[in-house]
């Protein structure tokens, strides 16, 4: 004999009551919860620096808790002196335009072979971004730091590439490994790999 049968409540109305109560409780829980996001940033080029910092700064503006785990080339995004580059090499979808919007009439595969082209492509993209009112990576990173986005760096990458910790911004919260990051990711509502 369980308690439900003791009070002789019809099963249908109990189910109905439970469904209503459950929905109500879940809605209360969702409303009280601070959404959270974790991002794994693995790329260190100018173009691939944008997604993690744009998403992190925007999410924090929405009131979410955000942490970014920087690993492999992604660690370059945490250097004190940012010198990010973009290249058309292996990047056939990259539109090659002059800052005035004119297309360069040459396949990216050919351009990529020209000596020094990477530097030219990088400065052209930076100029175009400035013209279009797009934030620099420095600015977006600063906004993330201000908004308490948690910057976590991969210890293994530092050891692997022989970096010194003094090369990086002091706002890095932790130098950790995968086992420290995963429990945070487990509890997050949104997990992204960039």
């Amino acid at each position, binding site marked *: 004999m369980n308690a439900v049968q003791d009070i002789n409540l019809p099963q249908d109305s109990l189910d109905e009551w439970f469904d209503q109560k459950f929905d109500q409780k879940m809605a209360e829980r969702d409303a009280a919860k601070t959404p959270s996001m974790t991002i794994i940033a693995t790329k260190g080029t100018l173009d691939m620096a944008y997604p993690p910092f744009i998403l992190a*700064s925007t999410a924090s*503006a929405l009131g979410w808790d955000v942490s970014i785990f920087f690993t492999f080339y992604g660690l370059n995004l945490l250097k004190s002196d940012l010198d990010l580059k973009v290249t058309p090499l292996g990047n056939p979808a990259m539109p090659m335009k002059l800052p005035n919007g004119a297309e360069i009439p040459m396949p990216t595969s050919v351009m990529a072979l020209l000596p020094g082209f990477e530097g030219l492509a990088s400065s052209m993209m930076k100029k175009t971004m400035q013209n279009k009112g797009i934030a620099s990576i420095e600015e977006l990173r600063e906004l993330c730091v201000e908004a308490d986005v948690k910057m976590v760096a991969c210890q293994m990458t530092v050891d692997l590439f022989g970096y010194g910790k003094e090369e990086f911004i002091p706002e890095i919260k932790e130098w950790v490994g995968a086992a420290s990051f995963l429990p945070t990711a487990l509890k997050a509502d949104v997990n992204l790999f960039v």
Partner: protein
Amino acid sequence: MSIEIAQTLDARGLNCPLPILRTKKAIAQIETGQVLEMTATDPGSLKDIESFCAQTGNELLSASQQGSDYVFQIRKH
């Protein structure tokens, strides 16, 4: 009845996500119940500001297009 604007923000010429980030900062500086008027030229801001307000619980009083400008009035909640 006209709405009293406590603060204005000029986000013209800025692109995603800067209008949202600047709006967030400006809202932090006003009191609950006060209204921020933000002007942007980023067409994406129409949907983005709507979503920002829905997520943060602030009230989007109006969103209108004036020439190439988008003007938003947001009441802080």
